[in-house]
């Protein structure tokens, strides 16, 4: 028997789960709240890790940053698995359409050789940098504290992998498998890429999750994305007629625009927590962004030549202004 249950009006017994009522009051909770707050075990952890008996399984003290409540690091996008995945699936459809537009119209072959070469030289080795970013965010997600922060890092890690794969496809489209081989050789041996590779490899041995967040997501990406995708791809290459390359990079541009809001929010809340945090964040940001700028310079030179110093200088200034807004003055 099929009963029409919609018409029954029955009284709810409660609005939400206890832990959410304690945080937000006795009212219905959003799906973001239900899926993110307090879902990591906090008490009565059973065993210490055999891989490092000085740590707890979930340990807030492995970073120098101190938060009274790590769940304060809210994601302004309020991403949980569902809306994150749907957002990326939509962007992926656009990216797919862009790739097939460029491919079906033979736009890659119409690119002037010189511009095509610049695109390959600058973009293809970055697939390895994006893979490094993926490992770093996987680390932050794995060892960071509180789901609200660490789930966003895992989403970020998967985005980094997606970007590495778009860059690989770009390489294949513009220069076939040889382009990937050459890009990897450059990444490993070309002098211009070594400061960048060294930066990434130095990140791979940082085991303070919040410092790694600053090194990778704040400092490096904060300079790399504006310089590569805004200045070189959208600015220089498009102006010279290589807008097909910009089409293939749309995902990266949109992505940086979106994710920097999250990165800024994390920094802002962590810095506002205490002077202790602010001082550490300033120290880390200063140290890593200085190195990131130096690592970017020879890469930017590949496209912009003598203008590179000036452009990097401008973007460093913009970066400092951005960080100042979130309370980190360098």
């Amino acid at each position, binding site marked *: 028997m099929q009963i029409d249950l919609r018409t029954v009006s029955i009284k709810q017994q409660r609005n*939400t789960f206890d832990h959410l009522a304690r945080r937000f009051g006795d009212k219905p909770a959003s799906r973001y709240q239900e899926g993110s707050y307090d879902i990591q075990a906090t008490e009565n952890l059973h065993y210490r890790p055999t891989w490092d008996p000085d740590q707890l399984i979930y340990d807030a003290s492995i970073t120098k940053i101190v938060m009274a409540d790590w769940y304060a690091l809210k994601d302004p996008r309020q991403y949980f698995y569902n809306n994150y995945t749907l957002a990326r699936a939509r962007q992926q459809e656009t990216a797919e359409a862009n790739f097939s537009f460029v491919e079906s119209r033979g736009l890659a072959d119409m690119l002037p050789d010189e511009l095509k070469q610049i695109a390959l030289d600058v973009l293809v080795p970055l697939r390895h940098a994006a893979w490094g970013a993926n490992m770093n965010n996987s680390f932050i997600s794995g060892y960071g504290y509180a789901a609200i922060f660490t789930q966003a890092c895992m989403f970020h890690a998967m985005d980094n992998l997606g970007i590495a794969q778009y860059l690989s496809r770009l390489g294949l489209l513009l220069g076939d498998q040889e382009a990937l081989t050459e890009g990897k050789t450059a990444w490993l041996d070309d002098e211009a890429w070594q400061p960048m590779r060294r930066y990434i490899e130095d990140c791979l041995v940082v085991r303070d999750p919040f410092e790694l967040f600053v090194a990778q997501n704040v400092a490096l990406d904060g300079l790399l994305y504006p310089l590569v995708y805004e200045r070189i791809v959208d600015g220089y290459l498009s102006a010279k007629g290589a807008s097909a390359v910009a089409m293939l990079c749309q995902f990266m541009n949109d992505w940086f625009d979106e994710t920097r809001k999250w990165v800024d929010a994390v920094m802002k809340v962590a810095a506002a927590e205490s002077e202790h945090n602010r001082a550490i964040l300033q120290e880390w940001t200063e140290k890593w962004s200085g190195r990131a700028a130096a690592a970017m310079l020879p890469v930017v030179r590949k496209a912009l030549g003598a203008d590179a110093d000036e452009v990097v200088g401008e973007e460093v200034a913009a970066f400092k202004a951005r960080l100042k807004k979130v309370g980190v003055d360098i």
Partner: protein
Amino acid sequence: MDMQVAKKKLSLKEKYKLLTRDLGWDTTYHTKDEVFPYVQYEGIKIHDWDKWEDPFRLTMDSYWKYQAEKERKFYAIIDAHAQNNGHLNITDARYLSALKIFLQAISPGEYAAGKGFARMGREFPGVGTQVACQMQSIDEIRHAQTQIHALSNYNKFYNGFHAFADARDRMWYCTLPRSFFDDALSSGPFEFMIAIGFSFEYVLTNLLFVPFMSGAAYNGDMATVTFGFSAQSDEARHMTLGLECIKFMLEQDPANLPIVQGWIDKWFWRGFRLLGVVGTMMDYMLPKRVMSWREAWNIYGVENGGALFRDLARYGIRPPKGWDDAEKGIDHMSHQFMLALYQYNFGTAFHSWIPSEDEMEWLSKKYPETFDKYYRPRWAHLSKLKAAGTPFANMGLAKLCQTCQIPTVFTEPDDPTSICQRETEYKGEKYHFCSDGCQHIFENEPEKYIQAWLPMQQLFQAPINGDLGAWMNWVSLIPGKDNGDFDGSEDERNFAAWRQQATSNQ
């Protein structure tokens, strides 16, 4: 302009290799040991990470695309379920106990697994392995979230769901899954893969999600079926990862065999103990039954597990040490577990009950060798006490197994009339166990297991100091609402009244 030469279309395997495997490089500014510091100490030898086989070659574009499709379907169904009072479609409010256990005990484990796989996604030195682990990490976040979201609407109408986050950390029966996942997370990367990838995914999730979820469908719960099957579609990938990982370790070096076998022995038994809960849910908590725990075990344990171990025999792997003891326990464990839950139901945030005459008939048909002989008389005895107005409550403190943390309620493998208890002395302290399996696990790693948090001992420490009311407060259990016999509970009354309202014309 020259005609462009049509580019050779890459095969799935080639594409995956270029888009994933080829992203990695051998670091030179830091050594491999510095970058991957945890892959040595367990003693597993890997000579060539490139030999790793990726069974599902998912790139992020397909991952996002297919997962988004699953997500759209899932949320459409649970939205409709909430809007249409879908909870009134379930066969019987007793069924809710299974969902309460699920949310308190299983969903937090999904999250923990996700955390562990984020770590593995970083700690393994092979891109293929890392990516598979990372995808599993966000999948597991997905499972925790879809489960919470599906059960959120039940929480609005029924008791026992509201404090699942508190229960996860403090409730005595939640320490069973918690200790399982904490054990895995505190292990090295390779053991973690056996614990979760193999034991939990390959041996357990089929039993957890497949027959039980089919049972949820049979009991009118579309929200649960949907999260169950939707999650399980990811688990198929996870199981395959677990299996690949075992094969990889065994193929890389013959010296890995004894280590891997030891972990299989350990984690099979850990997993099997955890399954006691699932067996009880299937045999007792689904008002309409699809299959018994025994039948499910025959399909997914004996048949499927058997096939797996026959397959692995070519590497020298034998079935897990506890396999025979497990088989001997199958026809007993759900009954013993449910009897224990019933006796301690003043301390559970879900209801239990004495099975009806009908249900006992079904149980005796499904368990012809054991039910009438051992368990029907005990239920009959409990019925008599209840009818006399003196329902039995076991206020004595249960002795917990130091390893699996289940009260020692299971019987000797070869004697269903005596409780199985084992003891080990370590550094002057006595430790208790429910079985040979759990005792062996302890004795192999005593320094780990002496750290276990034991909820019964907590009862006598501050702030509780042996006061039951204070304990209930501490675990956020509301007496008279969340706990006790289903018979006479608020959930029973409300469900009946709401159903009545729905089926009559007021």
